[in-house]
């Protein structure tokens, strides 16, 4: 490219930016020697470029400070605390509050929630409180520790501590002397069990009882309102030799709402219960159920259910089945674990292996797991008759 006055600015530009080769630079220098005005023009360009460079330098310094100031504002020390507080709130506190909130519905607990909300349960709670105060008052004056048999229409049932129980009959203890003997043993044992504060079972004194065809007394509503999926009487009746057929149930006429809400268990109670027990039950004393024992299982934080179960009772079985599925947290379960029963392959088994959980099989489909570490067991004592 030849140098001429039209394109001289481009030559200046290249020269000042060091973009000319040696040959071209020599050519340019020669041309400038003969054109002094072009040399002056180049000096002007040079000053201009230096000024632009200087301006760019200043602009960049300003930009650095602006951005640093902006970032420092973002890194305001208190902001970190606010962030930490927000994280703590949303990740820790809020979920905990939601999970432990009574209004929070966990998936799959709708039945429980509905049941808890029913007025009948509220009434039951009140009744429990009443019973508790009554029992506390009458502890010293308690005299009735006898066991009345199921065939006795006027029976008051087992007396556990100071809370008499309603009795129910079954095939297993019809006119059996050994049953009566065992019942005595049970009564003795159970009378030794001190009722824990807050878990004293409610009395059934004022509840209406009915006789069935065999003359046994049954829970008034349990047979009618609970559509028991299993004919547990067939499975259970022949097994238990105890004859102690006792159930403290709340499935009476005053809780129709609960009873009508039974839903079939679909086999996943195992996982649900394990999780629930793990989450909701504080650690308690280790209990090791053994054969030939009466084991009292106490569940600490259940609101109001007490079961006294001889596992031979169909009614009791249904009731327990129903209540566990419904409430998930029965307050107390008394388990009679005779050796024969323990090893019988039948619909109900209590097993305790080396693992952490005690498994109660209701039938082949339904299993209820109790965490040993979360159950307090008492009265591990052999019945005299065994």
């Amino acid at each position: 490219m030849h140098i001429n006055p039209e394109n001289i600015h481009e030559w200046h530009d290249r020269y000042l930016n060091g973009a000319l080769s040696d040959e071209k630079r020599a050519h340019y220098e020669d041309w400038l020697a003969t054109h002094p005005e072009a040399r002056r023009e180049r000096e002007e360009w040079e000053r201009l470029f230096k000024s632009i460079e200087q301006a760019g330098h200043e602009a960049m310094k300003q930009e650095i400070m602006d951005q640093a100031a902006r970032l420092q504002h973002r890194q305001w020390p208190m902001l970190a605390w606010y962030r930490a507080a927000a994280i703590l709130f949303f990740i820790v506190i809020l979920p905990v509050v939601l999970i432990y909130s009574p209004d929070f519905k966990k998936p799959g607990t709708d039945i429980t929630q509905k049941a808890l909300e029913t007025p009948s349960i509220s009434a039951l709670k009140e009744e429990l409180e009443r019973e508790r105060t009554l029992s506390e008052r009458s502890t010293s004056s308690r005299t009735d520790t006898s066991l009345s048999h199921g065939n006795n229409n006027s029976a008051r049932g087992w007396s556990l501590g100071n809370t008499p129980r309603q009795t129910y009959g079954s095939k297993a203890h019809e006119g059996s002397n050994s049953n009566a003997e065992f019942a005595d043993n049970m009564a003795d044992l159970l009378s030794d069990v001190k009722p824990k504060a807050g878990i004293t079972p409610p009395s059934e004194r004022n509840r209406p009882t009915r006789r069935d065809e065999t003359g046994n007394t049954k829970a008034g509503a349990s047979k009618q309102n609970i559509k028991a999926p299993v004919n547990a009487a067939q499975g259970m009746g022949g097994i238990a030799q105890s004859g102690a057929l006792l159930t403290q149930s709340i499935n009476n006429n005053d809780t129709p709402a609960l009873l009508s809400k039974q839903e079939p268990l679909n086999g996943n109670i195992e996982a649900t219960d394990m999780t629930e027990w793990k989450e909701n039950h504080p650690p308690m004393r280790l209990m090791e159920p053994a054969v030939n024992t009466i084991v009292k299982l106490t569940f600490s934080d259940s609101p109001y259910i007490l079961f006294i179960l001889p596992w031979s009772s169909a009614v009791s079985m249904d009731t327990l089945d129903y209540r566990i599925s419904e409430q998930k947290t029965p307050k107390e379960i008394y388990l009679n674990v005779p050796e024969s029963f323990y090893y019988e392959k039948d619909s109900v088994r209590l097993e305790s292996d080396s693992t952490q959980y005690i498994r109660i099989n209701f039938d082949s489909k339904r299993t209820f797991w109790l965490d040993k570490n979360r159950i307090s067991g008492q009265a591990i004592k052999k019945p005299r008759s065994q």
Partner: protein
Amino acid sequence: MLKRFLLSDKEIVRRVRENDRTLLGQLYIHYSPAIVRFVKNHGGSQSDAEDVMQEAIIVLWKRIVADTLEPRARISTFLFAVAKNIWFNETRRRKRHAIPGTDQEAHADSTPDALETVLSTEQQQQVHRALNALQKVCRDLLLLFYFEKRSMSEIAAHLNFANSNTAKAKKYQCLKKLKEQMSHAH
């Protein structure tokens, strides 16, 4: 973690080449504590330290753009070394000014006269004003070319021109506009 990644050496180089201007503040925040401490320990003030830090970042930026940064050098080390040199030069310059009589003749020979300095400063301010009056594209183009010494193809990529020739033509127009602005102001 993210911060560590964003300010890793490779990432810094990549971001400078892509003209990510947000990096400037991050570099300042990240590397300034050590340099500020150094300058303060060697007789400087907070504002001196800030100036040194800014100058060091600019040197780093230009080195990366010109691709003359030693690839094995860690950026933190490079910045600290540059800042150290800048500060020592500055302290030497201050000492020279502080002691009258030393090197006075040589000093008088090397420094431009007052009138020239005033003119130069005035022209710089004029250019600054004229640059600010230009369109943003023009201003960016001129600064990228004359200050950062980026190539025309790079400028074309950053400023979304079709190619380097378009960028070159635009630069010529922008220079003309700048001159016009300066003559108007004059």
